[in-house]
C-alpha cells in the first residue's frame, strides 16, 4: 500500500470510489430500500398481516420444502461430479464439464419448458405418468425438478477448480497410509474443500429459493399449492396488493442479506485457518 509507484492522485482515487459507490447505490441500495419502504408503507401491522395470510404462508412453506430437497441433492451431485472430474481420468470428462455448465447458458424458461415437454400431458413420459396417477407438472415434483436443474452448477462449479488445484496427491498419501477410499474422502478430501462447498451451498440455496423463470413454467400458479415465494410476489403484485407483494419480497431480500452476512462472518471467524490452508 505504501508503494509510491502504484499511488494515484487523490482526485482519481476519489472519483473512482464515488463512481463505484454511486453505482452500488443506484442499482443495489435504492431498489432494496424501495422494497422495504413499500412493504412497510401501511405500517408494521399491515406488514405482519400480509405475511400471515394462508396463501403467503403456504408459499413460504413450499419454497422451504423445495430448497430443502434440491440443495442436499445438489450437494451430493456437486460433490460426486467434482470428485470424479478432479481426481480421476475417464472418457467423456470434458463433456460432463460442459453439461454441468449447461443450466447457466440456458434461459430458465427453457429449463422449465423441457420438463413440460418431458412430463407434461403431451410430453414424452406424460401418458405413462397419467396411467400411474403421478403428477409432475403443475405440482411440487415439477417445481423441485426445475429448481434442481437451474441450481445444479453452483456446488460443482465451486468445487471443481478447487479440487483440481489441490490435485490428488493428498488422497494418494492417505491411501498409502492405509486409509480406505471412504475415510480418505471424509478425512482428507471433504475438509480440504469445505469452504468452497459452503459457498457453493449458500449460492445454490439463494438461487433455489429465488428461482422464478423455470419454476413459473412448471408450477401452474395454483394458489396455496404450487406457488413459491417469487411466484407469489408476482401474483400479489398483479393484484395490486403492493404491501403483500413487497412484504414477501422483503423476505427474499432478507435471505440474500443473511446469505451475504453468513459468508462474511464465516470468512472472518476462520480467517487464520483460511490463510493457513491456502484458500
Amino acid at each position: 500500500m505504501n508503494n509510491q509507484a502504484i499511488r494515484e492522485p487523490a482526485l482519481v482515487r476519489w472519483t473512482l470510489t464515488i463512481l463505484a459507490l454511486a453505482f452500488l447505490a443506484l442499482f443495489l441500495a435504492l431498489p432494496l430500500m424501495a422494497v422495504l419502504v413499500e412493504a412497510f408503507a401501511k405500517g408494521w401491522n399491515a406488514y405482519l398481516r400480509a405475511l400471515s395470510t394462508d396463501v403467503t404462508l403456504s408459499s413460504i412453506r413450499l419454497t422451504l420444502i423445495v430448497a430443502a430437497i434440491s440443495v442436499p441433492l445438489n450437494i451430493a451431485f456437486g460433490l460426486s461430479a467434482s470428485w470424479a472430474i478432479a481426481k480421476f481420468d475417464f472418457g467423456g470428462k470434458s463433456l460432463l464439464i460442459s453439461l454441468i455448465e449447461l443450466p447457466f447458458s440456458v434461459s430458465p424458461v427453457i429449463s422449465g419448458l423441457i420438463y413440460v415437454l418431458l412430463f407434461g400431458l403431451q410430453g414424452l413420459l406424460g401418458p405413462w405418468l397419467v396411467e400411474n396417477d403421478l403428477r409432475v407438472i403443475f405440482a411440487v415434483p415439477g417445481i423441485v425438478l426445475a429448481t434442481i436443474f437451474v441450481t445444479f452448477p453452483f456446488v460443482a462449479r465451486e468445487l471443481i477448480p478447487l479440487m483440481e488445484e489441490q490435485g490428488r496427491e493428498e488422497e494418494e498419501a492417505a491411501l498409502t497410509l492405509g486409509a480406505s477410499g471412504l475415510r480418505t474422502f471424509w478425512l482428507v478430501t471433504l475438509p480440504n474443500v469445505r469452504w468452497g462447498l459452503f459457498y457453493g451451498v449458500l449460492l445454490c440455496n439463494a438461487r433455489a429459493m429465488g428461482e422464478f423463470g423455470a419454476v413459473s413454467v412448471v408450477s401452474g400458479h395454483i394458489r396455496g399449492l404450487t406457488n413459491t415465494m417469487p411466484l407469489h410476489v408476482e401474483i400479489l403484485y398483479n393484484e395490486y396488493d403492493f404491501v403483500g407483494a413487497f412484504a414477501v419480497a422483503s423476505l427474499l431480500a432478507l435471505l440474500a442479506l443473511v446469505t451475504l452476512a453468513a459468508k462474511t462472518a464465516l470468512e472472518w471467524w476462520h480467517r487464520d485457518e483460511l490463510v493457513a490452508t491456502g484458500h
Partner: protein
Amino acid sequence: MIEVDAVSKHFGDFMALDRVSLSIGQGKLVALLGPSGSGKTTLLRILAGLEQPDLGRIRLGGVDATGLGARDRRIGFVFQHYALFRHMNIAANIAFGLKVRKGPQRLNSAMIDEKVNTLLDLVQLGGLAGRYPSQLSGGQRQRVALARALAVEPRLLLLDEPFGALDAQVRKDLRRWLRRLHDEMGLTGVFVTHDQEEALEVADEVVVMNKGRIEQIGTPSEIYDSPATPFVYRFLGNVNAVACNVSGGNARIEGLHVAGGTVDGRGTAFIRPHDVELLELSPDLPQATVRLVTVLGPLVRAEVVLPDGTALESELTRDQKDRLDLRRGQEVSIFLRKAKVFVGDGA
C-alpha cells in the same frame, strides 16, 4: 526382498516402463537415477500400488503383491511436494496412518500421542506439533512427510525426488541426515532422483534408467567407474566422447592409442576429463593446443585441441595448472589414463 519382475507400463502411446526387472535387498537404500521421462517415478508409483503395471509382477518378501492396493501394501511414500494434509496440524498429519488403522493393531490414543512425539523428535521438529504445513519451510515439510510415512512402520519407504524442491544447502544437509536415519533404523528404501551427485552420495545401489529401461544397476563406484553403456557414461558426470576407429583391440584417435573395442570399425571412446592428463611438451607423447582455461575453485578445467581438431576437456588441480603454467595457446602433451570404447557412434 522386493522384486520387480518384467514390469511394463504405458500411458497412451508413451512407453513409461519397458520390461523392467529389479530386486531390492533388505535394508538397502536404492536410488533410481535418470532424466525426466525415464520411467523412474512410474516405477516408484507401481511399487507403492498407486499405479497398476500393464504386464509383469511385483513381489514383496516372496509374495505376489501385484494386485494388492496401495492401502494394503504397508509401503511408505514421500511425495515430491510432500502432500501433507493442509487442514491438519503437524501432529495430526503424523498420527493419520495410526488413526485410520483398524482392528487389533490399532493403538490407543495415548500410545498414538507417544509415538507421534517420538517421531517428532526423530525428525527434529519437537516444538512444531501444533503448526500447519503452510507455516513450515520446505525442509521441515519434507521431514514431516517422512515422519508421517515412518509412523506406520512401512516395510519399504519410497521417496519421489525427496530433495528436488529444496535449495542447495538444505538439500545437502537433509540427504546426509536421511542417510544416517536410514542406517540407524535399518529401513529398506528407494528414492527417485535426476541428480547424479545425490544418487552417488546417498545410495547403496544405483539403478540408472533411460527411456523406460534399466541401463545399469550397481554400487555408486561401479556405476561411476565402469559405466555399462554410453548413456550411463554421459549421464554421470562430464565425459569426452570421441569418434575413433577400432582395429585389433585398439582404438585410434588422431595420434592416441587406446586399448579397447571388440569389434573392428567405427567406435566412440569415452574419457572422463580427469583422465585426460596434461604434461610438459614431450616428443614421445601426442600434442595438443590449449584453447581455454577455466578456474573453478579448487579445480581447473582446460579445453585442448588435437591436431585433427578433436576437442578434449581435461580436469586438473590448481597445483598441476601452476606447475605447467597453463595458459591459452600453449602446446602441451597429453596422456589418457583411462578410456572406454563402445561400438558405433555412442549415442
